[in-house]
């Protein structure tokens, strides 16, 4: 099965805020504009850079670099602590602007989203997608702030629209069609394509595919049977040709949080306090979606590098309960038992609840009264925290762990 390029008029627009958090900080504090800025989650030299401004990127500063290392190559780098409420506001403003053009808007993360114009009104379509893209840029500057910039990509499917949005950063607007796809692909590397990282690149290289053009020319059979050995090959074949295969919503399967411990070789009691804090936060996430969980997974990074059943400093263990649970205490009870088996001393801890589902209240429980009481207390605490602010009520042993700061939610936009 070989499909031709999709030659329909482009109807998908991808919008990506440029160096989102750093740009928002430069918007909020005019004196940071034009200067190298790095957004970090904590004001410490060992903290990792979450976002760098274009001025910092031009000096060689990259995401994930430690602030201390970045300052060696860019001494004038300004480290700014992240301020999630500000980023959530800009996210909501961008969403509001995008929603004014189509009912089919999907935010992919806090700083990027997709508008599908295929079912929009003729009045909007007649404006032309390029004109709409320019208008969105203009509105972002006028309605949020004049330092705000975004990249716009237009194509026939989500994948090519995202590829187009990455072509001319910052502040670009590009249209990728069946007419110019070969020319544009000839300027890209395989890893420039979203979804192609080092491992997939190796697999493609093993069958003689070294460039996006060769990837585009590969047959569906080669991709399905030899490279991906699954239906993913067929999907890539269609995706590269501009046919939509990514218009899907995924149900929430897990909710978690992690935390880098702020002290070297932190003692067990302090680690448990931070674990408790994380469990409260994860429990709140699960309940905010109206779900219950059945599994808890705890992971840790250890200062030890190898042990029985784990290596490379990374350790994890899970527990699946026989009945669903939802309260912070239930999550902490399980997570605590798991963490006690971890290879101390630890650098980082994380908790994830999985096997999420909607609560099934139809079944009668032997301990129905206790479950009812637990639900009532948990809802009352959630209600108080919602009215008076996060962590107005929390477990006593996390009193002095206020430092377990909520990081910026990069992936899912469910909690924004």
């Amino acid at each position, binding site marked *: 099965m070989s499909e031709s390029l999709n030659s329909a008029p482009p109807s998908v627009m991808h919008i990506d805020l440029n160096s989102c958090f750093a740009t928002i900080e430069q918007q909020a504090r005019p*004196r940071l504009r034009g200067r190298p800025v790095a957004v970090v989650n904590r004001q410490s030299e060992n903290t990792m850079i979450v976002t760098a401004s274009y001025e910092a990127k031009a000096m060689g500063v990259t995401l994930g670099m430690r602030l201390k290392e970045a300052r060696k190559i860019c001494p004038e780098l300004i480290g700014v602590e992240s301020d999630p409420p500000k980023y959530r506001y800009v996210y909501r403003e961008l969403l509001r602007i995008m929603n004014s053009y189509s009912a089919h808007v999907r935010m992919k993360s806090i700083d990027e989203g997709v508008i599908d114009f295929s079912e929009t009104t003729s009045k909007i379509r007649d404006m032309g997608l390029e004109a709409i893209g320019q208008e969105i840029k203009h509105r972002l500057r006028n309605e949020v702030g004049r330092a705000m910039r975004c990249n716009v990509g237009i194509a026939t499917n989500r994948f090519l629209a995202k590829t187009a949005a990455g072509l001319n950063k910052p502040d670009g607007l590009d249209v990728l069609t069946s007419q110019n796809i070969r020319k544009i692909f000839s300027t890209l590397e395989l890893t420039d394509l979203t979804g192609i990282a080092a491992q997939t690149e190796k697999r493609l290289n093993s069958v003689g595919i070294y460039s996006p053009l060769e990837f585009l020319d590969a047959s569906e059979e080669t991709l399905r049977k030899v490279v991906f050995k699954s239906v993913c090959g067929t999907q890539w074949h269609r995706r590269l040709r501009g046919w939509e295969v990514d218009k899907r919503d995924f149900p929430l399967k897990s909710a978690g949080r992690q935390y880098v411990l702020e002290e070297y070789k932190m003692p067990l009691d302090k680690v448990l306090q931070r674990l408790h804090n994380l469990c409260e936060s994860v429990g709140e996430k699960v309940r905010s979606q109206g779900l219950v969980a059945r599994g808890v997974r705890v992971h840790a990074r250890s200062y030890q590098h190898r042990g029985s059943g784990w290596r490379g400093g990374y350790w994890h263990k899970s527990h699946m309960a026989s009945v669903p649970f939802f309260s912070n205490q239930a999550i902490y009870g399980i997570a605590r038992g798991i963490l006690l088996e971890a290879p101390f001393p630890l650098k980082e801890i994380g908790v994830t609840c999985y096997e999420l589902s909607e609560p099934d209240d139809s079944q009668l429980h032997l301990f129905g009264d206790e479950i009812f009481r637990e639900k009532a207390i948990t809802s009352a605490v959630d209600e108080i925290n919602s009215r008076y*602010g996060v962590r107005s009520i929390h477990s006593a042993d996390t009193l002095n762990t206020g430092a377990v700061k909520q990081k910026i939610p990069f992936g899912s936009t469910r909690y924004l």
Partner: protein
Amino acid sequence: MDDNSRLNERVYVLATFGENLNICVPRRFKRASGREVEVSEVGLRHPTLKGRRMVHVFDVTDGGTDYRLEFDAERLTWHLTWEGDGE
């Protein structure tokens, strides 16, 4: 934001109310010490919830120092909550 520069100082604010981006613009404020600060630019205004209480946060500058002003929409009070020299 550096914790060392965090404040909770009640301030007197002169603000104007207009349209679009300029719905509410703090123009000048007077600190507890009596010093007056002329706002040269509002960088970003964003609303945020403190519990169910709506607070409007204004990141402003006088050209030499950056400030954060918070307007409590329930209590109708202004507080200076942060100042920094842009470093």
